[in-house]
């Protein structure tokens, strides 16, 4: 192949535009979040918004540099990058700057570099390289072991810093493996039990049931690929639950909610199971079995946490869940964040008019909780638009990944999608109080150069592959 392709002409400008819009939204949101009347200029580089502008300009330069780099370089040196990143992750444990009792940063003058951010990129490249090996059988035990090592080596090193939030993101690679043929069960169980463990400790029972129903629906789709049956089953289940709850409410209003819920779900499950037997649908009964197992598991997590674990073990879990930097009890940060977003209303209070994010109620308001500022000042309309923008970006990236002719590029694309998606879900979920406080930034929006640059490089390597996808033969 010697045909020279014009990168700029083939670049997916749609994605670039979305990317730039996100950077801009991030910049003005930070301006609003840390707005200080003594430093009114948005270009004031002594303030975070001024610095963010510098990071943004640098990010655009980096993006251009990535586009001008030969994409074969990423392919050939993917293992090499991976090795270097692993070395950096080891080095940061010894030479890193300690912030909040964790060593995650290298400090170079005014710039902080977080190797974990770049580990995501390196892992994506290495995984793409390994998975695109010809004649690889994904369920082969040696292949599984290698893939597992590629993913979990950085996880282990990042946990040693310790930085739980960043290490959690690596579990997103399971999505990539699923796309490349790993059985759906792994993904399903992983998502279900991973989330249940955390949510059981966080949410009240009503939310729990809602989530279980949604999980059941997803599970049914994965197993049966029959939306109609799944919807019917869930509807029946929900109706029975409601009926049982209603009876309780009338007959014995004082009953503990847990008892009500267990009775309701067991009753619902029994009815569904009966229906399934009548229709000879063993998959439906499998689903019900799963549902009951999930319920039991959920409550056992609660039970174990409250009754079996020693206090110090409990507090460790609290640290993992992000409860510990929470001076006013476990729900303070979440509450303040919810109040800020909730007070935004339909259309928000207007740019710079937020009171909750101005008066320091919300912690980390320019980094992890930047979504609060948007929610408060631009309301439901604004936050939905931002979420829509993210969904659009992710779906656009799926489209880009799918049109790649090289398996490497596609796998890499899905890696980027998974990482962005995980960040997005955890971050937004955290601010609206349905995911525990895990300190990870909202891509392209949150304050900070290190993560912005890492995401930029990830995204533009994909765009670089996409621009020259015609070079690869079918």
């Amino acid at each position, binding site marked *: 192949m010697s045909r020279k392709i014009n990168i700029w002409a083939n670049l997916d400008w749609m994605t670039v535009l979305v990317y730039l819009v996100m950077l801009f939204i991030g910049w003005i949101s930070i301006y609003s979040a840390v707005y200080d*009347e003594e430093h009114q200029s948005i270009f004031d580089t002594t303030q975070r918004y001024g610095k963010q502008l510098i990071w943004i300009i640098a990010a655009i330069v980096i993006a251009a540099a990535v586009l001008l780099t030969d994409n074969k370089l990423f392919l050939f040196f993917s293992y090499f990058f991976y090795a270097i990143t692993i070395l950096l992750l080891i080095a940061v444990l010894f030479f890193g700057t300690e912030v909040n009792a964790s060593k995650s940063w290298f400090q170079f003058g005014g710039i902080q570099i977080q190797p974990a951010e770049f580990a995501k990129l390196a892992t994506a490249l290495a995984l793409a390289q390994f998975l695109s090996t010809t004649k690889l059988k994904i369920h082969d035990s040696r292949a599984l072991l290698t893939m597992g090592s590629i993913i979990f080596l950085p996880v282990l090193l990042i946990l040693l810093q310790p930085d739980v939030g960043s290490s959690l993101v690596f579990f997103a690679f399971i*999505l990539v493996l*699923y*796309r*490349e*043929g790993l059985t*759906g069960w792994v993904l399903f169980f992983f998502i279900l039990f991973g989330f249940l463990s955390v949510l059981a400790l966080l949410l009240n029972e009503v939310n729990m049931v809602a989530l279980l129903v*949604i999980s059941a629906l*997803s599970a049914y*789709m*994965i197993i049966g690929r029959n939306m109609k049956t799944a919807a019917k089953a869930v509807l029946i289940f929900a109706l029975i639950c409601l009926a049982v709850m209603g009876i309780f409410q009338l007959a014995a209003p004082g009953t503990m909610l847990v008892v009500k819920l267990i009775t309701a779900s067991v009753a619902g499950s029994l009815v569904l199971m009966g229906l399934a037997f009548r229709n000879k649908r063993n998959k439906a009964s499998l689903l019900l079995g799963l549902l009951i197992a999930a319920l039991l598991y959920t409550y056992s997590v609660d039970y174990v946490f409250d009754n079996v674990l020693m206090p110090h073990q409990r507090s460790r879990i609290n640290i993992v869940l992000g409860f510990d930097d929470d*001076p*006013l009890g476990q729900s303070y940060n979440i*509450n*303040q964040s*919810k*109040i*800020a*977003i*909730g*007070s*935004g*209303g*339909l259309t928000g209070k207007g740019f710079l008019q937020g*009171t*909750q994010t*101005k*008066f*320091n*109620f919300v912690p980390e308001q320019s980094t992890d909780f930047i979504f609060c500022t948007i*929610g408060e000042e631009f*309301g*439901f309309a604004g*936050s*939905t638009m931002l*979420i829509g923008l*993210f*969904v659009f970006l*992710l*779906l656009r990236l*799926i489209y880009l990944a*799918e049109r790649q*002719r090289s*398996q490497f590029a596609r796998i890499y694309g*899905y890696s980027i*999608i998974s990482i962005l*998606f995980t960040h997005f*879900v955890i971050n*937004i*979920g955290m601010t*609206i109080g*349905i995911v525990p406080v895990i300190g990870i930034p909202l891509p392209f929006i949150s304050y900070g150069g290190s993560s912005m640059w890492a995401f930029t490089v990830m995204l533009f390597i994909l765009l670089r592959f996409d621009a020259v996808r015609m070079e690869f033969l*079918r």
Partner: protein
Amino acid sequence: MKDHYSDRKYIIGAMIVLPVLFFIVRLFILQVIDPSYKLSASSNVLRNVTQYAARGLIYDRNGELLVYNQPVYDLMVVPGQLAEFDTVELCQILEIDREYLDQEISKARAYSMFRSSVFLKQISSRTYAVLQEKLYKFPGFYVQLRTLRSYPNDIAAHILGYVGEVDGRIIDEKQGYAMGDYIGITGIEATYEEELKGEKGKNVFLVDVHNRIMGSYQEGRYNIPAVVGNDITLSIDAVIQKYGEKLMQNKIGSIVAVEPSTGEILALVSAPAYNPELLVGRVRTLNFRQLAADTLKPLFNRALMAHYPAGSAFKVVNGLIAMQEGIVNEHTRHTCPGHYTVGRLTVRCRYHTTPVAMPEAIQVSCNTYFCHIFRDLLDHPKYGSVTNGYNVWADHVRSFGLGERLEADFPNELRGFVPPSTYYDRFYGENRWRSLQLVSMAIGQGELSVTPIQMANMTAAIANRGYYYTPHIVRNIENSDNDRAFREENFTSIDSVWFEPVIDGMHRAVNGPDGGTARIAQVQGLDICGKTGTAENPHGDDHSVFIAFAPKDNPQIAISVYVENAGFGSAMAAPIASLIIEKYLTGEVTRKWLEDRILSADFINREVASTSRQENLSDEQED
């Protein structure tokens, strides 16, 4: 390349969309349906209330309160927290007009939407009581407690100084001051600002929609308690200070009284004085302007800053120097023909017995005697030249704390002036001046000038027979050892043996059987030693001067009194000093007739002044 799993892209797409739908439902509930978060947000109003530290209290030497703090209330506004309110009602409560309200709110807006500005300063406690009950109607407003200085005795305004709000320059120059803070501007308030000011604190409150305080934000995690300033005990005796100020009413001048054994200032009066309450609070600016415009300069601290000739009181120092230098001894006598004449120059004396030695010369304040010994000193061959002789003399003078700042604990103290020999070199040319040209300094006139506190200190040095402690006004500071080197003796260059004849002369001047210039100052049993003086005033009537200490042995008080335009020392200054000494040493005044005469004397209102001066002239002997 085969891709069997291509359909999985839909599942992955669905997995992305599903939680997002959940998010959107959740956000819809949170932001649109559920009103509780909006309510929480409105009760989530933070209020930073500065806790202003009360300044330290100031006491006199006997523990009498001189300065304390009175609570006042500033009405503050945070524009970003304002809601609709009844402007008419607020204007009525505060007795302000609509124009003021609009103007202040737009001023506050211009300063900051989120930080508080003062809306109305120093609300009376009556208005505050009314406002407090209705404050819930005015979200965004709150009351800030402040304290203002208050003075139970209305005395010692010049010593205490005053407190004012910091300006932009102070905020730039000094650490830790913000808009609206107070700072000591003059007097003790300025000198001991660090000790008095305390440390500001801060309380962060949560306030609900009804403008009610719901509690401390984050359980007081961000609260900083204020630290009250340290109390200061002055060496001032409030009784004497008050009496001194009373005696100086309708006069211009100064009284400084020092305890010789410690250097502690017992009274420091500058007249005319002003009521310290005038420079407190809202009225300060207006009153200050009026006081500053007053031609009698009531703000000017004459005790520290007025330059006067020393007058004849300075003869005692000339006498000491001449003896120290061996020019005369206590027995050396000079004849006085009633004047000192050399060529065309004549210094007049007055009738007294002659010849006189040192004690009598001081007793009768003989000009002739002191002209002789002064010139003999300067012209003495052992110095080689008049310049050298003069320098020897000037060094002795300076050893009494004259001509330089005493570095007492006041701001704005002036140096006085003991001319260096170069001054005369410039004036007459090098080595071209003679002792005769300087002879007026023999009797305390001429170029030499002093401040009243320097004169009091000089008197203390004489009372101590050769040393003084730097005069100072602070006795004790709470939580501080107050070691400001005021406990060290400063020795004069005169040996203690030479003081007895001089003190004997001062004793005779007051208590002498005949010819004493200050017999009006005599109090039975108090052994007052004093020396009158008249400071020549080229601008008008001469100033009345008197220095004294008592008792003669183991002195407890040394004093200098200047009364401007009051003529001879014996006329005004000596009776005032004597009354103060009597009051201080005995606690009472027996000579009511003298006190009445002083109190009725008026040197500010010219008509009254002329009659009282005639009366004085006929009363006693002149200098």
